[in-house]
């Protein structure tokens, strides 16, 4: 099936620009006439993922594939990887530094929140190699 495919470089060195990809996807979905409730779920889930890539993994690539009835989002990084995915999924668990917390993030809510707002989420991670998160959100 044809889809609209968007690809972004997420700059891991620039905290200020984190969110650019999510905003672009949000704008595109609005233009395509996707319901505001679905647009917001996508925006929040993808933004949390984008922030994670910047604060934990020195950035990476974000790919969005928009179909008539859902969106698939791939967030790929070459960061440190996640040693214990079950633990990382626990609300409140975070490896973020005090510096990250002073920026308003690192409460350990990112991954649980991404799961909450998506219909499907898979995490493929290898320590020392990187992490790919897939999110599917139905419209």
């Amino acid at each position, binding site marked *: 099936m044809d889809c609209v495919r968007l690809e972004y470089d997420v700059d891991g060195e620039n*905290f*200020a620009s*984190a*969110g650019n990809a*999510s*905003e672009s996807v*949000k704008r595109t979905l609005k233009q395509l006439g996707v319901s*505001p409730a679905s647009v*917001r779920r996508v*925006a*929040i889930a993808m*933004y*949390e993922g984008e*922030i994670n890539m910047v604060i934990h993994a020195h950035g990476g690539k974000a790919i969005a594939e928009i179909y008539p009835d859902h969106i698939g989002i791939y967030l790929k990084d070459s960061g440190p990887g996640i040693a214990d995915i079950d633990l990382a999924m626990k*609300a409140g668990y975070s490896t973020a530094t005090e510096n990250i917390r002073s*920026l*308003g*993030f*690192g*409460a*350990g*809510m*990112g991954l*649980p*929140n991404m799961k*909450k707002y998506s219909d499907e989420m898979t995490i493929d991670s290898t320590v020392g190699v990187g992490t790919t998160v897939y999110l599917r959100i139905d419209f």
Partner: protein
Amino acid sequence: MTIADVVKLLDAEILCGEDHLDTEIHTACGSDMMSDVLAYVKDQSVLLTGLLNPQVVRTAEMMDMLCIVFVRGKRPEPAVVELAKDKGIVLLSTEKRLFVACGILYTNGLGG
């Protein structure tokens, strides 16, 4: 109430978004932790915070919020104001502290 009412009640300075002061708002939230705003907030249209970085504006944008109130007399960098202008989000600054600012808005009818 409208955003203009918030300006009056909090004796706030308008940093940008003068064109949107007539917008009706019904609910607000107060937090310095954007992670928690993204996790717990639902349909709130005003964010009160002491945090000043650009991700406050991004968080508000993702949540479809209309107005951010910086408390404790804080003012963000011009780049943050520009970002908010670009998104059509109203930025206000008040000398009041977070607890007091939230309390004033709540007692005047703004919900949580």
